[in-house]
């Protein structure tokens, strides 16, 4: 069997070099066509009618007037009479028309009669949710009661982090055309190879009848895997409109209401330690809601999961709100925030520097050496020893400055992926995968791996992704893409190269296993003069091409990729105690992700994840209104995201070392999105001297904490 292993670090020419993303020019010049940009001939536009009620039974749906409206080509009732609607925004009916304005006018003519039912849309007060709470069983290890008696210091507090949304800039949706039982499908998706099958299941047609194509997509963050009702219904509208393509993208309000959320997490945490900082006991009563389906159980205690004595209780709460979807490192940012806040508060009780506390307890994690190194590295980057003061002690007029720590862990091994490499007689090379580039730089990574393997410049590799006719490659979730596509591409390219060696070897009078592909040449190992150019070698193919497959087998990755990524982030903030405004000074991020194929785009992933953490720590929250049962801030004015002036400085350190490199490729999309909220929340506590227990740390909450009140 050929040797697929990565070339040694010092011999790599392309992998590991900072490379600008290949689709950068198309994106920055506006040429990149996203699914929502497509205008195929005969295009129709669809608009949905959604429920204004959080809990109701549909009594009647009258579409007669809408059906007759000029320009309407098809109309479908999605939730017919008798349907129990469980959240506001539930899809009731959908209209296709010759323009979006006409479809909207027609939707306004649909009359729906509801029997309104009682709803619960807030989970912050567990006492008010009644039978919506569902307790998971208690988990006990060791003897927490005895351990708390032995503890020299105990900290107890209630912390919370709210529901947030994905707020993808390109909303969920698609352009779709269905003729007979064949579908052409241009979705904004994280799952080119699997979303067609999902759609086909609901349309009751063979999966192979659905042709999925997507060159670009405007953000997913875990929320864009399924075909969704609007995809299925739009296909039916197309069919009922004679196969004309139908465009349907959610409007912003609907996007923020039903297209997925990150679950909240609330936890009463009691944590105890010995005088020297050694944590010996943990007890938590947590609850969370991700919508009607409940969901969202943060893994507590996070990372420090070898605390010898603990008692865990968790309650899932079902509320009448749109359901949860995977959101960049599901449950991990919440767990990191809850755990690191508790540890930081305990350190304050012991009058201990939290950095020493984290270092003291790395033995309670599964990767003590890595976390120790990363804590020290991040501390050096943020000048912890110079800049840290005990809580509330770093004052300058009304400004208070503080530092804080957050921690992360993640898997990130490669998903199942197949790649096909074709070498043409003219020397050009194609690499095909049914994968997708969701903004993480996947295209670029694939081309770099193929170019490295074949000894060619990147410009000679044509990467073809975004089509489900290409070999199946997994969805982009769980930070699995880079490990999957790099491994399958590597293997396909090695396999193709072997075939080329078999042809060229006899011509060069050299055994095929003594050849190498370097700098655009095929030559004999150790005898660089004996060889020929890549072009000459490929000409020997005559009229044939070489086409070879490569597969990342998740059970046997042969060292090409693996999982297990650690990270530490530290924040430096200033807080104005008169206004309660938190200002980011700096966020430093130290992450390992094994062999880094493209440090430039990898760094961008970390920077972006840090900025998302700033949003979540300081401003982001989906606010539900118990009175109306609806989202109060389903627009981008009041659903706050950080702007370019809000983020301070962000400094990234990727642990690129021979030891980490040997582990193979590890995904990076999610781990850096985990520790930032914890780091910022702890920095604010350090700055102002008291804990602000609920994120986002908006001014009213900061001021309330300063005034000794719990809630703002």
């Amino acid at each position: 069997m050929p040797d697929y292993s990565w070339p040694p670090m010092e011999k790599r020419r392309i992998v590991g070099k900072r490379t600008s993303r290949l689709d950068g020019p198309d994106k920055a010049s506006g040429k990149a066509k996203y699914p929502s940009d497509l205008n195929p001939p005969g295009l129709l536009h669809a608009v949905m009618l959604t429920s204004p009620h959080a809990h109701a039974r549909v009594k009647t749906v009258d579409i007669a007037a809408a059906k007759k409206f000029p320009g309407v080509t098809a109309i479908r009732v999605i939730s017919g009479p008798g349907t129990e609607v469980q959240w506001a925004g539930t899809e009731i009916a959908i209209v296709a028309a010759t323009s979006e304005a006409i479809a909207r006018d027609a939707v306004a003519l649909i009359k729906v009669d509801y029997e309104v039912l009682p709803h619960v849309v807030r989970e912050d007060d567990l006492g008010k949710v009644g039978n919506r709470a569902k307790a998971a069983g208690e988990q006990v290890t060791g003897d927490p009661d005895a351990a708390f008696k032995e503890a020299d210091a105990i900290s107890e507090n209630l912390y919370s982090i709210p529901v947030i949304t994905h707020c993808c800039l390109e909303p969920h949706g698609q352009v779709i055309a269905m003729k007979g039982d064949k579908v052409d499908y241009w979705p904004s998706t994280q799952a080119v190879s699997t979303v067609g099958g999902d759609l086909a299941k609901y349309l009751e047609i063979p999966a192979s009848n659905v042709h999925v194509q997507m060159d670009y997509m405007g953000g997913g963050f875990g929320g864009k895997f399924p075909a969704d009702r609007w995809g299925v219904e739009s296909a039916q509208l197309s069919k009922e409109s004679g196969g004309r393509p139908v465009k349907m993208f959610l409007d912003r309000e609907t996007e923020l209401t039903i297209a997925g959320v990150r679950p909240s997490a609330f936890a009463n945490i009691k944590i105890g330690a010995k005088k020297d900082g050694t944590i010996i006991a943990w007890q938590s009563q947590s609850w969370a809601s991700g919508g009607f389906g409940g969901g969202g159980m943060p893994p507590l205690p996070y990372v420090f999961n070898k605390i010898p004595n603990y008692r865990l209780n968790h309650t899932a709460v079902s509320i009448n709100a749109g359901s949860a979807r995977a959101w960049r490192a599901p449950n991990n940012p919440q767990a990191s925030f809850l755990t690191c806040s508790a540890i930081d508060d305990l350190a304050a009780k012991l009058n201990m520097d939290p950095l020493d506390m984290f270092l003291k307890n790395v033995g309670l994690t599964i990767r003590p050496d890595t976390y120790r190194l990363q804590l020290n590295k991040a501390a050096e980057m943020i000048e912890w020893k110079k800049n840290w003061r005990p809580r509330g002690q770093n004052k300058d007029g009304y400004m208070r400055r503080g530092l804080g720590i957050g921690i992360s862990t993640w898997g990130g091994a490669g998903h199942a992926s197949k790649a096909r490499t074709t070498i043409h007689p003219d020397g050009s090379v194609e690499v095909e995968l049914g994968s997708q580039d969701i903004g993480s730089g996947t295209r670029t990574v694939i081309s770099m791996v193929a170019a490295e393997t074949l000894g060619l410049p990147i410009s000679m590799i044509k990467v073809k992704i975004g089509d489900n006719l290409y070999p199946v490659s997994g969805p982009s979730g769980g930070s699995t893409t880079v490990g999957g596509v790099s491994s399958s591409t590597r293997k396909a390219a090695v396999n193709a190269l072997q075939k080329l060696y078999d042809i060229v070897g006899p011509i060069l009078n050299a055994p095929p296993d003594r050849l190498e592909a370097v700098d655009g040449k095929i030559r004999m190992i150790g005898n660089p003069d004996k060889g020929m150019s890549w072009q000459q070698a490929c000409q020997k193919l005559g009229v044939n091409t070489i086409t070879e497959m490569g597969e990342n087998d998740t059970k046997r990755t042969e060292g090409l990729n693996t999982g297990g990524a650690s990270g530490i982030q530290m924040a430096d903030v200033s807080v104005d105690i008169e206004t309660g405004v938190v200002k980011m000074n700096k966020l430093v991020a130290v992450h390992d992700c094994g062999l880094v194929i493209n440090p430039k785009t990898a760094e961008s992933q970390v920077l972006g994840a840090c900025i998302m953490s700033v949003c979540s720590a300081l401003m982001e929250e989906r606010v539900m209104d118990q009175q109306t049962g609806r989202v109060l801030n389903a627009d981008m004015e009041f659903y706050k995201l950080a702007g370019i002036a809000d983020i301070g400085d962000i400094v990234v350190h990727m642990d690129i070392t021979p030891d980490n490199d040997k582990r193979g490729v590890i995904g990076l999309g999610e781990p850096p999105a985990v520790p930032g909220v914890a780091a910022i929340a702890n920095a604010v506590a350090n700055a102002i001297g008291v804990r602000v227990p609920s994120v986002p740390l908006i001014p009213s909450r900061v001021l309330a904490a300063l005034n000794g009140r719990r809630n703002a």
Partner: protein
Amino acid sequence: MRGVGLSGGVLSTGLLEQEAQAAPPAAPVSGPAAVPITLRINGKSVNTSVEPRETLLDTMRNSLDLTAAKRVCDRGTCGACTIIVSGKVMYSCTMLAIDSQGKEIETLEGISAKNHPIIAAFVANDAQQCGYCTPGFVVASKGFLDKHPNPTYEEVKKGLGGNLCRCGTYMGIRQAVVDAGKQLKGGRNA
């Protein structure tokens, strides 16, 4: 009120607030049916017909296949639909197409056809991930550089406060705008 942080949107636009003045009255057209209009886009006259209620953004995207400007918030908050109208940076989702007659409209399609250095600077600094906010940012950056050549980081932060990115590409954008500014200045002095 909850959820009201300090960032984003028009609250922090500074420059854009000042520049996004109301447009002068448009040519007399009325609806409700579609009416023919002529727009000046990227130096060319374009005829189309629109319902009076149509935004310039929707007209560009749906009728003229000018899709660089994106529809994201559709409420004048995020800047993804940014264009330049008679020299001013505007959100095209807040303008009606019929009101846009008689103005010089510049979109990213026009800016990229002229090979403005801001585009290469975005690429070199990896100032895009998914890329959906990128066209709006590039246009806002170009409009900002037109008025503030060779800016500092602090000026860039203020000048681009009217655009939002979800992937988190702000670090690259800051650097890209500063780099492009230097090139523009070099170009003029060369």
